[in-house]
């Protein structure tokens, strides 16, 4: 009989064909779809993340795992309502105004999604106003911005100023990244966090979300 562990292993192996069979079997067995997601699919990705961080998995392998997870999700999603799909939080991600370098950004999108976050990818060359409008519309927990050039990194600052001007700054945590970005720069421009690669960015978001929920618990 198919187990949740098999599902996780299948995600880890990036076995696109196998996952369909397994997930369908579990559904047919009457396993709770939410359990399949949490303890099977996302649990698999939770094994992947540290292996990637330690250098034992490459990005293409992580992507295959993510694709495999998504393939499994496709089968489960119709069985539950959108609200029931577990989300660790919502994040808006984009490269700033004038910056087209999206490899790092795309990695982060993939890794956040596989981690169970709801990700709204604004793409590249995102103007200050567009970030602001997206925050208004989607009410994310976190906004992630990246810049690969010394000339565009200043747009991180102007985007944060835009959020301040629009009264949205306090509703979100802001994380930033990209080659020229440092912790010092993050402090200077008033970002909440900085990360120099996709895996630590994910960990950073996890920490932010747990801080947020504990402070919510306190104020509740």
């Amino acid at each position: 009989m198919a187990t949740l562990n098999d599902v996780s292993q299948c995600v880890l192996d990036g076995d696109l064909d196998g996952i369909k069979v397994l997930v369908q079997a579990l559904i047919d067995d009457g396993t709770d779809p939410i359990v399949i997601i949490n303890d099977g699919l996302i649990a698999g990705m939770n094994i992947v993340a540290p292996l990637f961080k330690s250098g034992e998995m490459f990005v293409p392998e992580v992507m295959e795992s993510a694709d495999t997870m998504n393939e499994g999700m496709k089968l489960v999603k119709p069985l539950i309502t959108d609200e029931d799909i577990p989300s660790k939080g919502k994040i808006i991600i984009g490269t700033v105004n004038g910056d087209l370098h999206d490899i790092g950004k795309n990695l982060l999108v993939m890794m956040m999604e596989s981690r169970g976050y709801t990700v709204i990818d604004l793409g590249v060359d995102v103007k200050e106003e567009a970030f602001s409008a997206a925050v208004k519309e989607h009410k994310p927990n976190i906004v992630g911005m990246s810049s690969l050039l010394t000339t565009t990194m200043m747009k991180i600052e102007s985007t944060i100023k835009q959020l301040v001007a629009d009264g949205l700054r306090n509703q979100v945590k802001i994380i930033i990244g990209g080659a020229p970005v440092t912790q010092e720069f993050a402090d200077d421009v008033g970002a909440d966090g900085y990360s120099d690669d996709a895996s630590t960015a994910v960990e950073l978001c996890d920490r932010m979300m747990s801080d947020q929920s504990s402070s919510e618990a306190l104020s509740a």
Partner: protein
Amino acid sequence: MAKQFNQLAYTNLDDFVYGSCPNPVTTKSGMVIGGGMVYPEINFTLPGMDINDVTMPKAATIYSNIIEGVLKRAAELYAPGVLIEFETLPDFTEHPKYGIEVNRILLNGMKEASEKYGLKTAIRTTPNDLREFSRPPVMRSGKYWETMLELYEQCARDGSDFFSIESTGGKEIHDSALVKADIRLAIFALGILGCNDMEFLWKHLVDLSNANSCFAAGDSACGFANTAMVLAEKGFIPHVFAAVIRVAAVPRALVAFEQGAVGPSKDCAYEGPYLKAITGSPISMEGKTAAGAHLSPIGNIAAAVADTWSNESIQQVKLLSEMAPVVAMEQLIYDCRLMNAATLNGQQLMFRDLLVQSDSALDVQAYVLRPDVVMRISAELVKTQDNFLRTKLAAQLTVAELKKAIVEGKVKSDKRDMKWLDKMEKAIETIPDDPNEFYNEMKSVLDMDKFIPSEYGL
């Protein structure tokens, strides 16, 4: 196609060394690049700042401080000549007046250094390729194309010696090929999209340079092969994948020379040794002394057949001694002194082999830059004149070289490397020899929102 390369420029591996080449290029100031001596090539950029009408005076001051500082140090250290590279920031191509202004500041600093110290200099102007700023990229017309040509033309008129670019044709597809480590997609992006764009672009650049007594120098697969190298250094993709991409980028770079480029090729184009072997033109390379711009596994071997030796780029920030570009200038000059001292003694071949030996067994990306490997693969590449087939062949030959080297213990390898080489080998075998057939096959996996076929003549 202006030129065909159907044989190697060298008959003897021992002649294939740094500092000299069959077809040297002479700058306006009389530096003979590839004429026996390795010259330092310095590049620099602004610290983190906005560029606009308000900040341009500040940017202009920074550039004039940089050029004054680096050329003063070059003169103090008796550099035989200095090649300056002005690689523009996006804003400088988007607003050519900015780029033109900075280019003039540099030309002026060069003139002053010539008068004050008798220092020989030359400048390579490298506009940023903004065509990918349209999404999907618009490669053959539109404002980015126009402003780029405007910038080139005026800079050439103002006195630039060389044109270069890190062109981006096919990058919109190649980026995903990299993160997926998908060699078929990479070959499509490099061998069809990249080569087609190079043909279009470099025809224009060669015409422009001929009309303005300037040299078309060469392109770099920076956004392709160097991105692969950086991803590999981060452990994101296999080193063997990056090594194969490096060589698969050679036919693309060669297109510029077919169109009439004469070198020195771009510093960050590690395709350089292959270009030199095939075209006999001088090449620019960068290695350990470019570590401020990117780390690499090829710090010494990159110099083995270099004709100019570059720092890639560095911001104008203060280090404990001096501003970083001055520091880079000093380091480049000492590296060049050492190589040229060996040449003076007739020991250039021995010194080349030390540079090679010190790196080549430690990383597959270094291994594919070994002069013997370069000559062996290049000798096969010149047998076909079809850019797509050359790209496929380059990948195929590199996979074979690496498998052999790993089996023979000639290069350090990760336990997963052989698996990836096998995977690539199989994938390449499935690629048909006819580019149209291949394109048709690829259509199903290509994200057609990302690129416009007609911009590549497809």
